[in-house]
């Protein structure tokens, strides 16, 4: 039996991913990059991949330089893809994402990097994972239409996002503005 799902506007998906990433402890810019890439270029698989990735405790990614290649061992997509694209935009010729945990996130990040003019990258499979290198791919347009998100994925992302919410108090309500009754 197919599980239930929701169809989200891409801007709503962006807002949800942004909050979920922050709730999952992802640094601000990495969360922003994830939300932008998946909301603009991802589909259901990428959203599910993002959700799984956010379930893993954030850590600063380790990497090694081998000549002009930067290698991320046991690469976690949310941690490594922003760094790999930064490196490729700078002076690195290739980035190897070894044993990458969520390969479905690579294409959205690559598409977004091209769209915003940071780097035109090609990706190929390697023996150990995925390699990004400079290419000539045209910048893709953002995908249109809503994204179908499995209910359990939406629920989990919402729970990550909820970690950033603060319980309301009488004092906080009083400070937010307007009166309890406005019959003027």
């Amino acid at each position: 039996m197919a599980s239930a799902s929701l169809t989200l506007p891409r801007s709503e998906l962006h807002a949800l991913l942004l909050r979920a990433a922050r709730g999952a402890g992802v640094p601000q810019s990495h969360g922003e990059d994830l939300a932008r890439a998946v909301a603009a270029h991802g589909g259901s698989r990428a959203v599910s991949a993002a959700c799984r990735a956010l379930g893993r405790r954030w850590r600063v990614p380790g990497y090694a330089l081998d000549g002009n290649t930067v290698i991320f061992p046991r690469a976690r997509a949310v941690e490594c893809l922003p760094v790999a694209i930064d490196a490729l935009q700078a002076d690195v010729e290739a980035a190897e994402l070894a044993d990458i945990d969520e390969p479905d996130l690579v294409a959205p990040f690559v598409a977004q990097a091209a769209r915003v003019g940071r780097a035109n990258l090609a990706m190929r499979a390697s023996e150990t994972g995925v390699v990004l290198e400079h290419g000539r791919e045209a910048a893709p347009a953002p995908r249109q239409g809503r994204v179908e998100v499995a209910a359990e994925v939406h629920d989990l992302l919402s729970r990550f996002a909820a970690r950033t919410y603060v319980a309301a108090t009488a004092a906080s309500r009083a400070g937010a503005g307007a009166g309890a009754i406005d019959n003027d």
Partner: protein
Amino acid sequence: MKDLAQPQALRAPDKVMSLAHLGAMQPTRLSFLRVLMRDLARLSARVDRTAWEMDAEGHGYATYTVTLGAHAYTLVAVSQALADADRTDRVIATAWDAAFVLFDGIPNVADIARLRETIPRQEAARLSDSELVLSRANRSVRLFDHVVEALRAGRQPKAEMLARTGYLMRTTAVYGNGKFGLADRARIAERPGLSGPFAAEMLTVWLIRGFTHDLAEHLGGAPLDRRLKRMLGVGNATGLGMAPFLVSHPLLLDAWMQVRETALARVLAQPVIGAAEARALVALAADAARYLASWEVADPRAMAEIEALRADWAALTGALDAAALEAPGALMALMEACHTPALEELALAWLLEPFGALVDDLAECQASPFEPELDARQTCAALRAMIAAHAPWALSCDFDEAAETAQFWYVSEEKLEPRLGARATDPGAEKETPLDTARQICRLHDALPDDATPLWRHLAENPAHRAAARRVQALSSHPYAEVRANLLHAEAAPIHLLRAKLSCFGATRFDPKSRLWTRVTLAQGLPLADEIGDDGTWLPHL
């Protein structure tokens, strides 16, 4: 995209983006509502009231269809009974006098039935790709009742009373761009008349205004005088929910401000101005004086500021002579004579007003889908130098001082709205929303080595600083992208951010109720649905 090349130096971002200046902004002819009015005229838009199913109590529904180019849009309005005890401007309310949606196209019977059931629930509803904007409004009870009673008695309502309040109903939220399932802005971003920022939301507000007139006339059983109707806009109560937007959309903020500043620079760069424009400026100065004279608010501090502005405006423009304005450098001299942020921002708006042919094309540049992007090719030393050059306003903060971090922004789990807490006393600081741009820039600066280390390598090991790095980099080409203040400071009042954003919308009659929220009037003085053709009145007054 139009050429934003500056004819002369723009005003300094340190000044323009200070809270003092942002909190003194006034609507201009480039404000979104005014731009919308010109677009409606350019597109020969036509509004038809396509349904009016209201009972004697004014409860029921109505639809208004407007055609813009090849597209039709329909406002669906649902009016219902609301107990006085439930009438609150707070976003946490759950019932309103009226609820609205802007439908993409012409709704069929099934659509109407669905929306009548759905939209009164507002945030609790789930909208579809066919709906563009969701809103709700409450009656301004005293004025609404006065208007209805006057019409029932066979007379027109008192003009002074209308002008003082300025609206029959007050919206408490106007949602768009994917919220609660609404269509993404991308769906309409390229369409005629709706490509500007918040254009669909402004169209909705303008259509709501017409509905409020019709509802009062329906209940009063007689038509309102056209001149009075034009003076009735739509109220809006705005709280903290609007403030973080300016921080989270830095390049959009820059676009709005660059357009405004470029327009001023174009006006001031004219060697001389014509006699017609000079006469218009004199007349507009008098209009502004009348507007200021009619602008009354309850808050003593805000009222004192308005009174000071009245006096300053009189001193600046009271003895204006049209012939003198034609002299070379006259307009620049007027700007230079402005000695307060409030006077300077009003003068800016005034000076743009007669020069539509010179500045209106800039409105096309007010939309920006872009975000700051990292240039990873930089060295750490280069970024340090950039911070020193573009963000001294951030470096001047001493974050060891408790006052600098006395406030924190957070998201309340109740309706997921932004709130502001006191760090020393309120819970939740550990879940702080990252609106601390100044603090982030300081931390970035402190952590950056002053050497040739590639920036990407530093940020790979210090990812918490990457967001600030790209925001600082953006400042070199987008100097108005940041509010140049520490929003965590004890004295940083969100009301300034609300004033700035609402001015860009075209709001008038700012009526701050605290440092956290304000009431304003939207669409007052704009053409009615059957008057499309002009772009309305800059600062409306009787």
